[in-house]
């Protein structure tokens, strides 16, 4: 761990100004990821800007019946909020599938979006890693890579985004509200995280000095036929090997509107809106679900240890779609798969 300066921001404006002024600065929210990374000497911020006092802790009603979620709302507060449970139970379920109660109490909405990959090599500063130190190489390629990406990877990085919450947000089509020194802007959730490409050091589309201040989710009809199915190496407290956030509107056995996003398989929550649209009007049955899985995984490629993720993701997609279609969402407490 390196020495750093510590300041506490009292307003969002102060925070973004301070952040913009110092390329070495990082925001501190719940600290459940950043502090770990500092202790491992992976994150070496010269300055910490503590944003925990900022007034971003509310969940507000939007005129259309949607919700606006402040960046500092804790993962627990969000998951257990009555409005969220009723309107966006997929989000609630995805959050509860992740981490542990203690972590969820500390972790924040903004921090969850910005959490970094769990790639073993990223966490070990003595190994080459393009994400940690651009240009040094990717140790995971040809190395221990059972938790790595099968979709959208590049020859520079095969890491996955570890969040569960973000998979649900991708499926629900949230909007990320961002503030920078030059003012506010919105980013579609689908565009917020990026694929590694040539620049795996960049996880997302935030510009220097920008921070997340809130998320907006518009009212939708995905609170009946939805599920979050997470498959992992133990039944709790492990990151997803593959997870599926699925939601649909069904009428007379037909898919009216489909949303499906995958977690644990790519550098960002994996969603293909074009594919979703193609399946509108199709029968909500196993044959269709198999085609959806095929379609989503058409470009999937294993890295060796993680080859199993392809059949695993395929089975998970089919099962999740069955759960969603049947209105039988995965229970996050009962460990039997519904």
């Amino acid at each position, binding site marked *: 761990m390196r020495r750093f300066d510590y300041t506490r921001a009292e307003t969002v404006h102060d925070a973004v100004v301070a952040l913009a002024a110092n390329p070495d600065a990082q925001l501190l929210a719940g600290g459940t990821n950043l502090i770990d990374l500092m202790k491992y000497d992976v994150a070496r911020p010269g300055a910490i800007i503590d944003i925990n006092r900022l007034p971003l802790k509310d969940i507000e009603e939007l005129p259309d019946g949607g919700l606006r979620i402040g960046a500092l709302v804790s993962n627990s507060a969000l998951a257990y909020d009555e409005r969220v449970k009723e309107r966006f139970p997929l989000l609630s379920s995805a959050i509860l599938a992740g981490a542990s109660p203690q972590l969820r109490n500390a972790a924040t909405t903004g921090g969850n979006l910005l959490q970094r990959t769990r790639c073993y090599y990223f*966490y070990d500063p*003595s190994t080459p890693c393009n994400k940690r130190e651009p240009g040094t190489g990717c140790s995971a390629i040809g190395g221990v890579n059972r938790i790595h990406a099968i979709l959208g990877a590049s020859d520079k990085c095969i890491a996955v985004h570890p969040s569960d919450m973000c998979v649900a947000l991708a499926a629900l089509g949230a909007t990320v509200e961002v503030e920078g020194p030059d003012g506010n802007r919105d980013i579609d959730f689908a565009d917020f995280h990026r694929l590694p490409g040539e620049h795996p050091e960049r996880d997302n589309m935030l510009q220097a000095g920008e921070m997340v201040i809130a998320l907006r989710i518009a009212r939708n009809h995905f609170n009946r036929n939805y599920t979050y199915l997470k498959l992992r190496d133990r039944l709790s*407290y492990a990151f997803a090997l593959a997870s599926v956030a699925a939601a649909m509107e069904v009428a007379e056995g037909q898919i009216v509107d489909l949303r499906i996003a995958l977690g644990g398989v790519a550098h960002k929550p994996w969603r293909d809106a074009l594919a979703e649209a193609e399946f509108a009007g199709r029968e909500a049955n196993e044959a269709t679900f198999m085609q959806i899985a095929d379609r989503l995984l058409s470009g999937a490629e294993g890295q060796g240890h993680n080859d*199993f993720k392809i059949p695993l993701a395929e089975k998970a997609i089919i099962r999740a779609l069955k759960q969603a279609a049947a209105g039988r969402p995965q229970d996050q407490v009962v460990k*039997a798969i519904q």
Partner: protein
Amino acid sequence: MLNESKVVGLPLARIDGPLKVSGKARYAAEHFATDMLFGRVLPATIATGRITDIDVSEAERFPGVVKVYTYKNRPTVAKRESKWKDEVALPGYTMRPLEDDHVQFDGQPIAFVVAENFEAARDAAELIRVRYAAYDPHTDLLQEQANSYEPPVPRMKEFMPPKPRGDAEGAFAQAPHKIAFEYYMEGEHHNPMELFGSTVLWEKDGRLTIHDKTQGPQNSHDYVCNVFGLKPENVVVQNKFVGGAFGQGLRPKYQLFLAVMASLDLRRSVKAEMSRREMFYLTWRPVCLQKVSLAADAEGNLQSIMHHALGGTSRYEDYQENVANWSGMAYKCDNVKISYEIAKLDRSTPGDMRAPGAASGVTALETAMDELAYEVGIDPLELRIRNFIHVDQNQDKELTSKALHACYREAAESFGWANRSHEPRSMKDGNELVGWGMATGFWEAQLSEAEAKVSLSSDGKVVVSAAASDIGTGTYTILNQVAAEAFGVSPQAVTVRIGDSSLPKTSVEGGSWTAASSGSAVQVAARAVVATLLKHAQSMPNSPLADASEDQVEIAEGRLVLQANHQVGVAFADIMEAAGVSEVEEHGKVAPDPATMKKFSAYTHSAVFVEVKVDEELLIPRVTRVVTAVAAGRILNPKTARSQILGGVVMGVGMALHEEGMVDHRTGRVMNHNLAEYHVPAHADIEDLEVIFVKEDDDKVSPIGVKGLGEIGIVGVAAAVSNAIFHATGKRIRHFPMTIDKLLAEPDRH
């Protein structure tokens, strides 16, 4: 044997429990002194090679840093290898921290930063620049098979394979039913909650009081004295509370050496604690490749057993454990061939981890037995019962006891085994396939040399002292119970002093022998106290006990009385007064009895029954039920005993499904060195666990009839889980842990 129990056998809550849950129990790194220094290790980041340059200048300049040690400036310490050999050292060359520029394993300590505070030491360590000439690491056991060898110097003669008996190959060739498979176990890491730490309190007169995380305070004491040339009376090592160890604390760890080294050099108190990451670098359950061949006749009677095991070790020591010998004693069979080899890897030396050897070897044997049961077409439990044996064929000895039939019967009944259908994939619950599997567990019942001191004061207070350790197993509580029982006093009247090298000699706390050994020593010492009291009583005028002999008296309700007639006796306070003493203190000592050992073998046994549910499509397994029945002689305290078994079962589930150190063989480094990525079972992975202790009287295994419980709980669990998964899915996974990738890759065999 003890008399009719009053305190022994009661489910007493552990007496150190309140201290632990209220934070008052101080662990090794929780002791402080004013003016104390803090040390931090820099681990190597290559598995094999040389340090070509190590630049500590920036670290030395860091505010608060007092000194940075590397191989270049390590103070002089013992040269002769014999000085470095601890009580449980291995054949080979003991690792000497900061010895020279060689790196022999990932994580080897290559620098030790000492600073005025922990943060400075930690942060400065990251400023050390190291350049290496790295060699190609060889860390993959499967690639090193050609370089395997039989250990030239056996660690213990008991670990050497028994001589072959009969004609295993010939019998195998002729038998109508046979199986032969390879089983592979990945390396595991102990990860007790408490990190290794040593607090060395330095006193001006040169004395050291050391709080060390260890399973043997006297082992650490002797090591420190030998390596640094200190007078034994000037060093005390304490380990009053140990936050788990599982075998990782049997041998002194490098932080002990480094903290003492710095303390002597700087003439200050020094504390050093490992990081969680360092816990992955040394002492681990070795990777193990086994081949088991079994053959049976048409009725399932075993005709041939062949078991070959290959374990990993380091370049510098030959770690050995008893992996395969179990196959020669477990079942009746006259044609047996067992072999054991090790292969050098560029890794740190493995070490004993809960049921070392048996946890791996019995997993292979018991999975193979299940395979054989299906090959023959009989019930897996029935196969074991048919091949039951009442003697130890390996050593051609009788057994002190073996209530394994009762284990099978009681566990099977509680589990409902009779309702099992034989065919794989034949039981279902909703979306899930249900599988029931079982296995037998074996562990040796050992008595080690142990001494204890017991004193009884005239006001009825009892003090027990021994250099034993309570590594979370309940030693404090059971020694209390044995003493309370011996004097007929309540547990509140007894104080147990353990975890201190200056107390009566005791072996390291390992092998599940502490309860039997120290418990017996306490019992012997207590009997000696009674004998002394009797002597004093007999010199009193008109003593009613004048004609009594030692074995005719006991203590009851504050009086020394005739066992046959409690009316006849004298208050022990009066005896002491008459003798002019305020307390009576005696020593007790036990050691294995050579005559008994010549004739008898002693083992602990268990039967483990497991239910798994596996989603039919997704193949995610869940262990929903485990029933374990254990025959371990006398149970001193069913509560602490049950906890030992529960812990072992949970660890067995981890071995079956989760635990695995993932090594990048290109660099020879463990990559998942933290508890987020090295998985042990979480709460959700553990459901109903039931523990049954069957009645087993054994008057030979130890003076108090105890066999020990620390390790038997894990043995057989992984096999029972694997057998249950086979029963559920028809998939036989022979590579542990049985993670989802292996289940997906495996075709259905039925």
